[in-house]
């Protein structure tokens, strides 16, 4: 049954993706201004701009542009960025890889902090440990992530000098370098993600620790450590990962600010540049790809859940 389930989810993902193309295309065309204006800036004059506009193909009817866009995407021709003059497919390839490092790293950081903290809080529910852990987690979300980003830069780059303050390094050329460059933005993002994950881990674990099988495990004489961290956590991982998957959407919003701050040129940066410069093909492509990645991540998480939790595995 699980194959049908996967296909089913895939079908609904495709349907949603189609809706996303419509929304994206519709919205980008309501955006005031266009790329010709941005290319020329305050050096522009009407005649020059008309010429540029025509040469960029901005004068075609919308339906033609939509058809060309969707058709192009299906055939693998994503067109060129009007502002950067690069093939969008190439740009996306580079930037997705860059952002993937940050997304994975920040999620890893967030999970490795949030899960122990959440479990700790659940075990000591309503005690001082609980309050401490929730407060610590909340601190991360109490201040905007760009605040944490600047603090990271100051502390780890400027004062301690442990990590570079900005930039992106291609992991294919220098893997450790790439990780070092991604670390600070990931840490800042991770702090922001942590709060919600801690909360969810706590509430999931609280529920699980009240389950009968936990009492059964204790009645078997298993050590509390085993009961909580093995019997309990094995059940909490699924829901926590699902939340983590949903967080990916939030993360792709946060990287817009964070990548700009760290001059880490990934998808967030590219999307923001595209938006700022009214580079319609690039806006459409980046927004669509982000939405698609978010959806596919959630699909992936569901499948992962499928693999983790035997209850859902069969049907």
């Amino acid at each position, binding site marked *: 049954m699980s194959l049908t389930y996967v296909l089913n989810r895939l079908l609904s993902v495709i349907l949603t993706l189609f809706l996303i193309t419509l929304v994206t295309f519709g*919205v980008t065309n309501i955006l*005031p201004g266009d790329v010709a204006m941005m290319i020329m800036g305050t050096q522009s004059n009407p005649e020059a701009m008309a010429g540029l506009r025509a040469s960029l193909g901005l004068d075609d009817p919308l339906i033609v542009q939509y058809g060309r866009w969707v058709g192009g995407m299906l055939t693998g021709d994503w067109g060129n960025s009007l502002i950067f003059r690069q093939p969008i497919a190439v740009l996306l390839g580079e930037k997705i890889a860059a952002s993937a490092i940050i997304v994975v790293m920040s999620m890893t950081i967030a999970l490795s902090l949030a899960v122990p903290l959440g479990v700790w809080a659940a075990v000591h529910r*309503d005690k001082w440990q609980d309050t401490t852990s*929730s407060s610590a987690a909340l601190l991360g979300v*109490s201040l*905007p992530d760009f*605040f944490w980003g600047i603090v990271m830069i100051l502390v780890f780059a400027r004062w301690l000098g442990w990590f570079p303050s900005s930039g992106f390094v291609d992991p294919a050329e220098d893997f450790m370098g790439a990780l070092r460059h991604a670390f600070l933005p990931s840490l800042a993002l991770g702090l922001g993600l942590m709060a919600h994950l801690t909360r969810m881990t706590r509430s999931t674990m609280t529920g699980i620790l009240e389950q009968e099988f936990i009492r059964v495990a204790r009645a078997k004489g298993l050590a509390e450590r085993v009961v909580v961290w093995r019997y309990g956590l094995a059940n909490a991982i699924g829901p926590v990962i699902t939340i983590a998957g949903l967080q990916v959407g*939030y993360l792709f919003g946060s990287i*817009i600010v964070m990548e700009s701050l760290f001059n880490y040129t990934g998808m967030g940066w590219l999307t923001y540049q595209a938006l700022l410069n009214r580079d319609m093909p690039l806006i459409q492509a980046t927004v669509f790809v982000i*939405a698609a990645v978010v959806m596919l991540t959630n699909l992936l998480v569901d499948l992962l859940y499928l693999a983790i939790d035997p209850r859902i595995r069969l049907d």
Partner: protein
Amino acid sequence: MKKFRTSKGLIGVVLVALILIVGLFAPVFIPPEAATAMNMTARLSPPTWDHPFGTDQLGRDLFYRVMLGTQTSLKIAGAAVLMSIVIGLPLGMISGYAGGRTDNVLMRLVDTLLAFPALLLALTISAILGPNLQNTIIAIGIAFTPYLARIVRGEALRVAQMPYVEAARSSGTTDVMILTRHILPNIMPAVIVQGTISLAFAILAEAGLSFLGLGTQPPAASWGLMIQASRDYLDIAPWTALVPGLAVALTVLGLNMFGDVLRDVLDPRSK
């Protein structure tokens, strides 16, 4: 009301009350000019007797700014959350209660919106609408709506299966009555709790949008705008960030604790 007496509940209630009082009464006691008056001879001044919280890059008093900013921040966050509730609540409730095709269509729409990161959505919306307070509220409100709709739908789905709903239906209660009298009161606790937590996120969202020039327009004060303005001076004048940051932190902390407690208090079974 016993639940309020726990230490966590007490902290939450006190913080929220404090913030509400400041938000309501600060503008009564502090003239608006106090937040915008500049002093070029005391730029980025650390806390002193004259300026207990220090000053910002234009020599404006941070104490007055953070006090007067409270109302602005609460207004934006409150209105945005209210908007997400006004749209998301009926949407989620109908989706969860009606089920079937209606549910499918509505949730597909919600999914589509959810696929766009909230900040990206808010960014695009305000790029279209233009930057002002009202549009910031709309942008944050719309961005939050799908999350709320999802939560409400889940709750409505759960409540719709409760025997008391079935009992109401079997005693001839109309759908509208079931929605308003039975489902609504039972999902309200979840909505209120989600609302308090969203408030905290909305305050931060305003800060995020300020980063991009949306949100409150200077020289008016809001916490988000203050944090945003402080980012160039964090290393030489950390108080410019810490003052509004602490205000947001205390509010978020207070609202979260308050939300947790509210969840317990609103449950009639727990009294």
